[in-house]
């Protein structure tokens, strides 16, 4: 019986299950070996004492990511379209923004924003600072997603809208944007997953999010593994459904091309 290969036109469920299990098993073996070499004594009791910290942090990470996503969508649309704007200052502002944010590490941005910009602007609420930083960071990536999406709508669609007498605003509103949105939904879902993971760096400015909870527990109890393993699982619980959603969206809209 064939359990390792997929044959064309053959819906071989057992082979898929076997291969899935095989890979899971190998990974588990690697981890098991790694941990066995560590001769580490697990004390899972500690995390129970810190459970509220973890749950609050988890909620905080979710909230920051969601607010930042909404806000970064605005930024992404503005600067994504801005890169091709006829208003030249807006165009160059967009290009500067996208290139600077994408070209520097998030850690540097967090520290600069927190100690320089937020300080000068008098923003003391760390939640707000966290949302702003993540929105600015993610906005640059979304701007690129949107710019690419708009470009992928064929020039002929724009021309057709023009020939029918649509104004430029109307052609974006009724012709181009609806097509862009369906095309970039998978990429946007992926961006949300990145946002959730990247927000872990906010712990460096002591925002009490998910990773911060693990860091706190680790420094108080030296239970490194008991803090970071649940952390990894916690992030996976958020990002795996999103990547599943991304796949579904990709399949749903692929017929349109």
């Amino acid at each position, binding site marked *: 019986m064939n359990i390792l290969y997929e044959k064309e036109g053959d819906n071989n469920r057992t082979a898929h299950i076997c291969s899935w299990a095989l890979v899971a098993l190998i990974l588990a073996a690697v981890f098991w070996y790694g941990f066995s070499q560590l001769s580490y004594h697990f004390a899972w009791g500690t995390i129970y004492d810190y459970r509220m910290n973890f749950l609050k942090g988890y909620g905080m990470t979710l909230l920051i990511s969601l607010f930042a996503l909404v806000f970064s969508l605005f930024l992404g649309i503005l600067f994504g379209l801005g890169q091709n704007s006829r208003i030249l200052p807006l165009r160059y502002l967009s290009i500067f923004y996208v290139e600077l944010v994408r070209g520097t590490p998030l850690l540097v941005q967090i520290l600069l924003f927190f100690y320089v910009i937020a300080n000068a602007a008098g923003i003391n609420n760390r939640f707000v600072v966290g949302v702003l930083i993540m929105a600015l960071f993610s906005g640059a990536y979304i701007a690129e997603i949107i710019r690419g999406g708009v470009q992928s709508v064929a020039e*002929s669609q724009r021309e057709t809208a023009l020939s029918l007498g649509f104004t430029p605003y*109307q052609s974006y509103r009724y012709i181009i944007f609806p*097509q862009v949105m369906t095309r970039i939904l998978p990429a946007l879902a992926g961006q949300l997953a990145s946002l959730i993971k990247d927000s872990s760096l906010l712990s460096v400015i002591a925002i009490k999010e998910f990773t911060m909870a693990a860091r706190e527990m680790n420094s108080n109890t030296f239970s490194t593994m008991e803090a970071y393993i649940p952390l990894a699982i916690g992030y996976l619980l958020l990002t795996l459904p999103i990547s599943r959603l991304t796949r579904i969206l990709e399949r749903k809209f692929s017929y349109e091309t």
Partner: protein
Amino acid sequence: MKLELDKLAKSYGEVLVLDRVSLCLDDINSLVFIGPSGGGKTTLLRLIAGLEQPDSGTILINDKPIEYRSAECLREYRKKIGMVFQAYNLFPHLTALQNITLPLVKVHGYTESRAQEEALILLERFQLADQALKKPAQLSGGQKQRIAICRAVAIRPEFLLLDEPTSALDPEYTSEVLDLIGELRDDGMRLILVTHEMGFARQAADYLVFVGDGGLIAQGTPAELFETESDERVSRFLNKVLKYT
């Protein structure tokens, strides 16, 4: 319809596509441009459609020049003409019906219900009513092009411009599209058409213009152009395209 081209020139970079073309037709109902690929006929049609700007020269329609300088005037002008593209250019995210109603509602100020009524009358007439709720991806090439023609006709244009409307179609669909165009013509729709379908051109055109080498090489009624061999380039072209028909 009166159409006048006055020393119309257009080049793309180094390539001179139209070299000071002039033409004056007083009363024209169906005008057909024929000629070799790359000869400039599509460019000429796009200039008339207001989709390209000439480098110099003017186009006058019923003695009114097309105002290329003002975006507003150009849009008002485009609202009065119907354009049909070679690749149909339907909006893929909308149903066939919405493709027709969207311009009626957003550009021409129809109410949604009146737009639907108008669109359905057209679809009914051309046996497309069953396709009304399908997306373009679910339609055959011939159906797509017929929907695209309906979209262009629905706005009750002063005239219809068609840019090689059957070139992207399988041969079996060509005749259904040509039938529709012929029917519109017989109803009095004025049209300017670029085509490679010589049989159709001969039958449907009041006047034929042979565009090639950046200029108008020959022109006349179908009888004049097909039967009297005026220019060697024309007869060479006709021999080639008519070889297997």
